[in-house]
Each structure stands twice: as C-alpha cells, then as structure tokens.
C-alpha cells in the first residue's frame, strides 16, 4: 500500500511537472531570389542568386524556470545584411530562474538600464542586429518597488567565438559589466501607493574592460559610464529625464579622440482622454559606446541613443528616415494627438483623430580644445573639441513637420491622410558626399472600403516633391550614383483583402522627377499574403528601390534589387 502511495505520489508529481511544462516557439524564413534587371542598373548579381535568412526559436517554461534557444541560418545572407552573418549556428541560448525575489539568468541576455543611454542589448531580426550579452545576470527585488540588477559578459559579434580572441578578424571585444538600481517610491512607500504624485529614481554604472591592441594610440583598458534618471508624474502630467556620462573612450567611430561623452534625454507629457501631447529633447555628445573600440556601424553597441523623431511607415516618407548620429546631436520633438469627439460637427458619428508632429535635429557646437587654437577640431589623439552644453549648431541634420487626419467616414469607408514637410541632410545621414540636402513635401492618402463583412479594398496614393534638386543643379557624371532615388516620386498601392486569410496587392513607385533621366524608373511589385492564425506566408515579386530600412531607430541600407521574395513565419 505504501509502495502504491509512493508510486502514486511520484506519478502525480512527475505528472504535474510535465503538466506545468510549456513549450513555445517561432520560426521565420525570409528568402530572396535575385534577377538581373538592366532597367534599374542591376547588371551583375555578384555571384548571389539567392539569399536566405532564417531562424527558429524554442522556449521552455516550467513555473519559475525558463530556458530557450535560437538557431539562425544565413545561407547566404540577403542583400543589405552584413556579410559577416553568413553561416549557420546556435546563436542564442539562456536559462532563467526567477521567483520574484531573485532572478538569475545565464546565457544570452537582453536587457536595458533606464532608457538605454549606457546599456541596452537587444535583437532585431529585420535588421540582422543582435548585441546580446553572453554571460550572467542577477536581478534582486529586496522590497516592493526596488529592483537591483547586475550583468556581466561579452557581446555577440556575428559568429565570432566567445572563448578566445580571433585576431584574424580583428576581434578585440572586451568584457561588459553593469549595475543598475531602480526605486519606485509609489510602490515602496505605502502612503504613496494610491497617490496622484508619482516618482521613481534610478541609476546605473557600466564599464568595459578591453585589451589595448593599438601600436599607435594608448587605448584605455577600462572605460566606464554612468547614468542617473528620474520620473515624475502628477495627475495628467508626466516628466522624465536621464543624464549619462562616459569617460574618454577613443574609438574608430569618434576618430580616436580622448574626450568624455555626455547625453541628456528628457520628456514632458500631458494626456487626458481625447488629448495627448509630448515634448522631448535630447542632447548627445560623443556617446558611442562599444565593447570593441575598432567597431563600426552598429557593431557591439553597449548603449542605445534613441532617435526621437516620428517614424513613418509609408514607402515614400520612409525613404528618408533619420538615423542617430553617434558623435553628437541636439534634437527636439513635439507630438500632439487629439480626437474630435463623436457627435460634433467635425467629429461626425465616429470622431476624427488628428495628429501633429514636429521634430528637428541639429549638430552640437564644437570649439577647439583650450591648449592653443592651432590644433584643429577632432584630431585623433587629442581631446578633440569642447562643446557648450546648450549651444545649438546652425548645421541642421533633419526636420520633419507632419499633420495627420484619421477619419472613419461611415461604416464602410475609412480615410487617413498626412502631409509631411521634410528636411534631410543626406550628406551627413547617408554619407553621400556633396549631395544637396533633400527638402521635400510629401503627401499621402490611404482609403479603405469595406465591401462586405469579409472583403475590403485599400488604396494608397503618395507623392513626394523635392524642392530644389532638379532646379539647375549640375550633377557630376562620376557622382551620378548619388542621385538614385532623388527628385519627385509618385506611388500607388491597391490592396484587396479577404478576411481572415488572404491579401493581394499591387504597387508601383515611380521616380518620375529624377534629375538623371536614366533613373526615372518604375518599381513595380505584386504581393500575395496568406495568414492562418499565427502563420504568415508572403510572396512578392518585382523591384525594390534602394533605401534604408529602419527599426527602432537603427537602420540598414537596402540596395536596389529585382526578383522574388518569400517570407514564412509561424509561432506556437
């Protein structure tokens, strides 16, 4: 009987263990088949007919325990992704135990301190970006409202091994160590639990330990950065700010200057039902922070400098998306959302949603360092420059002023329209030396018509009119490439959807006003999408124009291509 009870008990617990086990995961494959297309100057595929990016990830959880892994394959990588990604392997794995008081993770860690000014690791599949920290993390929550975190490890650098340095690939990755404390007064002080007044404080410290591999410069082996933040709220108002400081950190990005780095990010917002406004300001100065001082582009970023401008999603405005300038910028952004209430003259039966956004980014002001003005700005091996904190340079990188109306007209008709005025310093942002600034007016209209319960039609019309580029600008024959995508554009898209599975669309983008006649091309694409629950299959064929794909403010450039592409994704 005892044996029976024991067996039974064991059975029951084994069973409940199994019953509590959960496995979930997701798969995605993106593939592109490239074809020659003389019309848009693709005369050579450079040996690449096919690009495939794929991943599969599995998560296992059981109560407080969870573990997971992600397998990746780039066979080879699609055009526009970094060639270092080429390969197959287990890119990511982790195990976590978290009981609410203590959380421990070993393996690949994604985390962020505050707004990320000194530490943020993340992964963005569509960009081929992953700076996960492989190591360990401890999270402690000693009392309600207090969170302490410590991380330690080395970051992912494509497929470079973690165990030993590979000097053949100039892999000088350092070790990253970080500590963060966060105190939410409202959750930790009972008297403030239900208060209108909100306050939380935080601070972080991050350092990297790197080997000095330079025979030319004296590279500091320990570089540390610290940040402090405060969030305040009262009623409908909210204010938050974070300030970060980094000691000298000469690197390939800042041209090996020995200046300190600083960043400030603040926002003030007011919101009530039907109305919301937010003002953000940002100043960064020499805040690129990488765990390898020779790193380029977005490689091995330890921190994240968020761009605060509006993110456009339609094809023409998103051709000119701003990306953060790591060496310094001053930015401001204002966004207002307002819904004209239902039942008023302008609001109509369903209300009318309005949005206004303005953002601008300028350079910081740089002055010669104090020891004699004979030293030029930003010379390697010097302190580089000095910069007054509140001074704004006349050099404007970017400005975007836009206004949007979103209106459900009747049960079957829906309209969204937006006007955008854009200023984009393409020379600074995309490195097209000598190319004139893009000053454009952009408009789009997006109309949806519900044919019946199952079917709908959507028409999107867009126009981009560039003010100056074709007015007498003499382009140099050798610079012609810089004028791809310049000038006026028109775009149209027609989509027919059958809920819940099918969607068919045809689209054309036409660079009809390009100053270079041979670039006045059509980019025609046709797309079929099939969705079943959490599975999506998308097949498209046609031309893709040269451009920039940005997610989360990080961008990659996509070369012009022609061919067929397929995306299959599912999660379970």
């Amino acid at each position, binding site marked *: 009987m005892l044996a029976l009870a024991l067996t039974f008990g064991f059975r029951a617990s084994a069973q409940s263990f199994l019953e509590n086990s959960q496995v979930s995961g997701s798969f995605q494959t993106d593939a592109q088949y490239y074809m020659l297309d003389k019309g848009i100057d693709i005369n050579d595929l450079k040996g690449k007919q096919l690009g495939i990016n794929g991943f599969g990830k599995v998560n296992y959880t059981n109560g407080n325990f969870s573990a997971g892994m992600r397998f990746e394959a780039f066979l080879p990588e699609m055009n526009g992704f970094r060639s270092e990604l080429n390969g197959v392997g287990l890119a990511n794995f982790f195990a976590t135990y978290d009981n609410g008081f203590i959380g421990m993770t070993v393996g690949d860690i994604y985390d962020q301190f505050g707004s990320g000014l000194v530490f943020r690791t993340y992964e963005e599949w569509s960009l081929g970006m992953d700076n996960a920290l492989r190591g360990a993390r401890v999270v402690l929550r000693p009392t309600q409202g207090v969170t302490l975190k410590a991380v330690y490890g080395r970051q992912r650098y494509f497929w470079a091994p973690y165990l030993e340095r590979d000097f053949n690939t100039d892999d000088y990755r350092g070790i990253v160590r970080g500590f963060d404390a966060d105190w939410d007064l409202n959750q930790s002080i009972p008297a403030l639990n239900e208060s209108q007044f909100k306050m939380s404080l935080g601070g972080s410290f991050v350092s990297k330990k790197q080997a000095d591999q330079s025979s030319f410069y004296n590279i500091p082996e320990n570089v540390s950065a610290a940040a402090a933040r405060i969030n305040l*709220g009262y009623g409908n108002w909210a204010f938050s700010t974070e300030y970060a400081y980094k000691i000298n950190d000469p690197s390939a990005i800042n041209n090996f200057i020995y200046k300190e780095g600083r960043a400030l990010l603040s926002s003030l917002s007011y919101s009530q039902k039907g109305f919301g406004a937010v003002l953000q300001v940002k100043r960064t100065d020499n805040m690129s922070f990488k765990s390898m001082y020779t790193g380029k582009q977005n490689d091995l970023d330890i921190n994240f400098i968020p761009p605060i401008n509006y993110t456009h999603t339609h094809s023409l405005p998103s051709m000119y998306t701003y990306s953060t300038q790591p060496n310094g910028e001053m930015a401001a952004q204002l966004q207002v959302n307002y819904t004209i209430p239902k039942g008023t003259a302008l609001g109509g039966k369903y209300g009318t949603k309005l949005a206004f956004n303005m953002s601008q980014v300028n350079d910081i002001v740089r002055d010669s360092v104090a020891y004699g003005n004979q030293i030029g700005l930003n010379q390697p091996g010097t302190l580089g420059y000095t910069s007054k904190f509140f001074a704004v340079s006349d050099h404007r990188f970017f400005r975007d002023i836009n206004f949007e109306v979103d209106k459900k007209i009747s049960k079957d008709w829906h309209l969204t329209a937006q006007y955008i005025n854009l200023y984009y310093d393409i020379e600074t942002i995309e490195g097209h030396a000598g190319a004139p600034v893009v000053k454009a007016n952009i408009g789009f209209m997006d109309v949806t018509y519900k044919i019946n319960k199952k079917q709908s039609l959507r028409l999107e019309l867009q126009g981009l009119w560039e003010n100056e580029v074709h007015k007498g600008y003499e382009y140099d024959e050798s610079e012609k490439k810089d004028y791809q995508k310049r000038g006026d554009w028109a775009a149209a898209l027609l989509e027919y959807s059958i809920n819940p599975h099918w969607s068919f669309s045809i689209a054309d983008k036409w660079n009809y006003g390009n100053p270079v006649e041979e670039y006045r091309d059509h980019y025609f694409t046709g797309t079929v999408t099939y969705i079943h*629950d959490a599975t999506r299959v998308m097949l498209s064929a046609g031309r893709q124009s040269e451009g920039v794909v940005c997610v989360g403010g990080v961008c990659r450039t996509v070369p012009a291509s022609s061919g067929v592409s397929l995306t299959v994704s599912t999660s379970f």
Partner: protein
Amino acid sequence: MKKLVTLLLMALMVTGLHAQTKSELPNVTLKNLNGKDVNIAKLNNNGNPIVITFWATWCGPCIKEHNALNDVYQDWKDETGVKIYAVSIDDSRSTAKVKPTVEGKGWDFDVLLDVNSDLKRAMNVSNPPHTFLFDGNGKLVYQHTGYIEGGEEDLYEEILKVAKTKKKK
C-alpha cells in the same frame, strides 16, 4: 486491481482537471501607464476571457486594428466580460509617446509597456500586430498575426466560444 485502476483513473482525472486550470500566461512583469508593475501570469479577469494584443506607436496596421477594437470594445465587454491588454513594444525612443497616443486616440484598453521586449520574446512575437486570446483559466485558445480589415470580427467569434457569459444585446 479494479480498485487500483479506478484510483489511477481518478488520479489522472484529477491531474487532468488540474491541467485544465493551469495558466499559460508567462511569468513576465511589465509596467502599466501609471507606472504600476503588472505580472502577466497573475492577470485575472474573474474567469472571463483575456485578450493580449501587441502593438507599437510606429506600426500602422496596429493602430488600425486598435482603432477598430476600440470602436467595439464596450459592446464586447458588456456581452462577454472580455478584457483587452494592449502591450506596446515601443522602446525608449518612443515610450514617452505611448500614453499621449493612447489617450489622444481615446483608447479604453489596459495598456502595458514592454520596453525591453521581454513579453514579446516570451510569447514569440515576431512582428506586430499579434493577438492572443486566453480563456478564463489562462489557457491560450487562439492567436493571430497581422491585421486585415474586419479581423476583429473573427477574434470576437473566438471570444464568444470561450466566454462564460454571453449576454446578447
């Protein structure tokens, strides 16, 4: 022997019943728009269904989907008691815009901030919008990616299947 079999069967039934009540909501803590911690595993809607949607301020189809959901949300709540948690995956570049956007658009959902994509990873979301439906016991019964005009109708049919109260208008 017969007794043993019955006992085992009963035990299996008990554990089976137990399995039915286990929650599939992940153990991830997010902040709501008032800064309060919300543990997803502990979400409780008194036995009524829970919908979790993933969206971002920069995601066009997500905004469309949530505008459409907001138009019908009050009716759905009255008829089925369903609760919608709209999880924003905006990162630090646009977190400050979430509340003004939600309020400015007049949405009535419980909005949660997944600034570090913890819940996004735990629930294997690749691209927003992505919608999950849990029954009153926290069991995942339906999920859907993307938004096609009228998609909310299908979600509602799934909600009706698991709703414990179905008050018709």
